[in-house]
Structures are given as C-alpha cells and as structure tokens.
C-alpha cells in the first residue's frame, strides 16, 4: 500500500515532463507547425533554468527562464519557417542540435568545470490539508507547484481549443489555412503565437528536469524525452486530453523501468532502460489506424 502510493506519487511527479512537452507540441501543431525540436528546446531550457535558479536562488525565476528559452526556440522555428518556407523538419532537427550545443556551452560558460555540482533550489510542494491524507488521491495532490500548473494547463488548452472562438480559429488554421485566411483569420500570426507559447511549455518541461527531478543539470539530461513527446502528440491525435493520458502512461513506464532496474532480476537493467523507447513505437503502432493529423500539419502556407 505504502509502496504503491510512493510509486504513484513518483509517476505523477514525472507526468509534467511529458504532459507539458507534448501539450506544447499540440498547441503549435494544431495551427500547422510540426515542431520536432523538442529535445533541443528542452535541453537548452533545462540549462537556462538551472543556471538562473542557481544564481538567483529562486526556483520561480528558473522556471520562467526555462519558459523564455523555450519560447525563443519556438519563435525561431516559426519565424524562419514563415519567412523562408524552409521545411519545418529541417529547422527542427537543426534546432535539436543547436539546443544540445547551447545547453552545454551556457553551463560551461557560466559555471565552468566544477567538482561538486551544486543543487538548484527545488520547486516547493503544496500539501492540501485533509485531502492529502487520502491514499492514492494524495499521490496526485501532494505535489510540487508545477504539477498543479500542469493540471491547469491541460484544462486550459482543452477549453481553449474546443470551447472558444479563438480555439476554433486556431484549429481552422491547422486544418485549412486557405479557408481560414479567406474568412479573415490571420494565419501567420496564429502560427507565431501558438508555436511560441508551445515552445514556452516545452521550456518549462525542460526546466522541470533540473528543478524538480534531479536537482542538477547534466549534459543530455532530456535523454530522448523531447522525441517521446513528439510520439505522444502523434498517437494522441494532437488532442490535449489524450496527450495527458499518454503522458501519464509514459511517466508510469519510466518509473516502473527505474524500479525494475534497481531490483534484482535476471534481466540485465539495460533492457529496462530501453522500454520507454520501444514503448513509444509499440503505442504508435497500436494507434496507427486511429490517429488523426491536422490537415496542414508540417506544410508551409503562402497566399499565392
């Protein structure tokens, strides 16, 4: 019972990494921008968030710095694509590599080589009185601040996409930019705003790693999660509520794999560490008939 609750809590703690990143991709994706740069965006944001939190001693500034770095990546992607119509995938892949270089460079330049890597101030937990006594439920609400923000963002993005006029317009841009343009929706502006905001969400997901999960920045600490987020967005058919479920699934896989790795089994631990990566392929394969894409996803739009 105690063990299950502890595992459950750990799973919920990992959930924002996948939720925020794939939610960020969904935002831009629904307007037609396929952002594959998540891995690089998250890495650069992790580094920026860690450095700022460490230097200022303030976790909130760290999260904000991570969000700003993420937004900068999202903006760069959409700006280059919208002005030159260069393939979103080429820009995305280049940004992955740029982010990997930038993150280590920032770290080295600001902190140099250190024997003991200092821990950044961690995001505090909020315990809700009484409710946090209830088993299982407590795992979901005995959590750090970003988890609550994540819940709010899932609901917000869902509401935005399906219940507001702006959401309808946003989806129209992703489905049929020409028709959206004809009825007076600003296609370019919509793509800029959603991709930049989506980048900010990816950034928070990146900053979450050092500021909640590990406490420190290490090179390549995203470890493929930025690409798993792309997989989640795809098999969730670019829908925020399904994205959340997918994120929970992958947080669970990661936590279980970690536990199995520590336990004494005959199977070498490396095979447990493979499971998230094989898992995403299996899930994408299982859902291949059900997935839907915004019709203009990944395609450039110009008026002529």
């Amino acid at each position, binding site marked *: 019972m105690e063990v299950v609750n502890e595992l459950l809590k750990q799973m919920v703690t990992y959930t924002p990494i996948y939720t925020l990143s794939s939610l960020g991709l969904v935002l831009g994706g629904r307007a037609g921008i396929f952002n594959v740069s998540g891995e690089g965006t998250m890495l650069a944001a992790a580094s920026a968030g860690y450095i700022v939190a460490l230097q200022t001693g303030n976790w909130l500034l760290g999260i904000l710095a991570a969000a700003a770095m993420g937004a900068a990546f999202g903006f760069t992607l959409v700006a280059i694509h919208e002005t030159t119509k260069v393939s979103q995938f080429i820009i995305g892949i280049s940004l992955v590599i740029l982010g990997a270089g930038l993150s280590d460079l920032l770290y080295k330049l600001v902190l140099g080589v250190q024997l003991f890597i200092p821990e950044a101030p961690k995001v505090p937990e909020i315990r809700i009185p009484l409710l946090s006594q209830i088993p299982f439920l407590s795992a979901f609400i005995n959590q750090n601040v970003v988890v609550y923000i994540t819940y709010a963002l899932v609901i917000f993005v869902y509401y935005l996409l399906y219940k507001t006029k702006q959401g309808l317009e946003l989806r129209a841009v992703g489905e049929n930019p020409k028709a959206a343009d004809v009825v007076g929706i600003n296609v370019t502006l919509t793509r800029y705003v959603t991709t930049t905001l989506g980048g900010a969400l990816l950034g928070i997901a990146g900053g979450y790693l050092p500021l909640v999960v590990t406490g420190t920045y290490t090179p390549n600490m995203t470890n493929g999660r930025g690409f798993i987020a792309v997989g989640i967005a795809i098999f969730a058919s670019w829908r925020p509520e399904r994205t959340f479920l997918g994120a929970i699934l992958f947080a669970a896989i990661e936590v279980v794999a970690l536990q199995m790795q520590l336990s004494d089994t005959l199977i070498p631990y490396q095979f447990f560490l*493979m499971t998230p990566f094989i898992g995403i392929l299996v899930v994408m394969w299982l859902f291949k008939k059900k997935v839907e894409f915004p019709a203009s996803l990944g395609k450039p739009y110009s008026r002529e």
Partner: protein
Amino acid sequence: MENSISSARLKQLWFLIRPYVFALGLAFLFTGVMLGLLGFNVWEAFKTLVTTSFSSRFQIVETFKKFTPLVLTTFAFAIPFQIKFFNIGSTGQMIMGGTIATILGLGISSIKMPSALAIILILTAAALTGAFYSLIAGALKAYHNINPIVSTIMLNFVAIQFTNFVATTPPWQAPLTGHPMSKELPEWMLLPKIFSELHVGFLIALGMVAFVYFIMKKTVIGYEIESVGHNLRAAEVHGINIKKTTLVTFFLGGMLAGLAGGIEVLGVHGRLVEGFAVTSGAEYGTFGTLTALISGAEPLAVPAVAFLMSILLNGADSLQRSLMVPVELVFLTQALIVILVVTMRERFKK
C-alpha cells in the same frame, strides 16, 4: 567573346555558391563575435580551426580518419533524404554495426582463417546489421506510416543501451576497466594501415562514395529514388513502388552507417568502447545529419562537404586542447551554418 563567356560562367558559379558564402560568412561572424566576447584571441582561434588539419602528417591522417565514418553517416542521412525522409538514426545503426562486429569478431577469434576473410566477414556483418536496424524504421514508415524522425531516434536509444549491455557483460566485457568496453580483438583481425596511422577503412569509405554515386545515377533503383523524391504522385502513377523505394533507401543508408561502425571498431579502437561513435563532442551520426543538410544531400557534394567538416572537427579538437575553447561553440556554429545555408538557399532561389 571569350571574355564574355567566362564572365557568364563566373556569374553562374557565383549564383551557385552565393548562399554558402553568405551563410558561412554570417556563421563565422557570429562565432567570431562570441569568441571575442568570451575573451579568446579570435584570429588565433580561426587560424587553429582552419589550419590544424594541414599542420602535420599526424593531423592530415587524423582528418582522414574523421572523414571515413563521417562521409558514411552523411550518406546514411542523405539517401533516405532523397525521398524526403529523415533518417536521424545513423548513430544507432553505426553503434549496432560496431557492436555486432565486435561480438562476431570475438566469437570467431579462435578460428584459424586468413585476415582478409575475417575482415570481410565482420564488415559485411556490421553493414547488414546497420541495414536491417534501419529497415525497422523504414518498414514502420512504409507499412504503418510511423514518422521516421521519431522511430529512428528511439532506435538510437535502444542501440545505446544494447551496446552498454554488451560492453559491460561477460563474455564480451573487458575485465578491470572503468569505462564500459569489450575485450580486445586479435591483432590479425584489425584493418591494415595504408599510410602512417591511416587504416584501409578510408579506402573502403571512398569506394562507398563511388558505390552510392553509381547506385543513384546509373541504376534503375537510383532513378526510382530520384523520381519519388522529385514528385511522389507522378512516380506512383508511373508504377514506381513507393514502399519498396522507401525500404531501399533506409536499407542503403543503414548499411553505410553500420559499415562505419564496423570500420571504427576494426580500424581505430580494436574493440567495442562505449562512446566510440562520438567525435568532437557529438556523434558521427549527428555531424552526418548536419553535413548532409549543408550539402543538400547531393551525392557529389556529400564527400566534399564531409571533408570540409572533418577539417573543422579536427580544428575544433585542437582549439579545445590549445586555447580551451569549448568544443560546443564549434558544434553550435555548425548547427547555425545548417540553418543559414538552407535559409539562404531558399532565399536566393527566386
């Protein structure tokens, strides 16, 4: 008369290289400013970056040794890219090739056979391993429409774990080493040297350049790949099997990456070492992707750009050693060059 022809030629040439000149100029300007801001001697740094590779026989050989796997991983990306698919899994294909090469090499090390036979067997196994590993992503795309950007990357991470498993588990693991690595392969199995420390893998890589050029330009399959890349609908109407073409490009790409892994094991390390596919701070696969994008994935441009890239990578290593410039700065510059080159190419098209 003669003069006007040559000036027209010059103009044509200028149009061709204009995007690259602007992109490189801007990227190096950025790097120069960064270096200056960080308090490095900019002139000294650029001189090291560019001239190191020509400074001694050792450095020339080092450059060729970097070129060998780099040109192969560049093609690993460039071939599927002909039909607009992204194989960013050359890292995984390369290390799987190297890992299987090691397992096979250690397995047959007690059998008496001519060196050449063993080398051919091992390199073939490495190439086929890479090919079939890449084919997983190709088949997932062709039959299940799963995005290769996701699948190839995921297979990279699986391969990294598999390599770690082999390098840390008996009977392959080398005893008493801190870093995960396998036992050494016997001397007679390693690639012979052709010049100083340069191994025969360099010639194999050059042979592969010719092979790819032949496939792409002189065979039916090359023509089909080009048609699909040019216009998918039209190719389909003309009866070209898109699925087959997809599988072939991934097979060929993975084959070259796997071969690169085998060559690195037999030519450079003599054993499986975790991280053997890393150079100048990142994987050969990553640099291959960058190189392919800069070269526009043109079969003839690939070796040229890969060679320039090897000079830059070798310079970057030296820069880190002598001036303590973080190698990531060069890495960053290269990603920047890619973005600038593709942007400029698009810009100057009109």
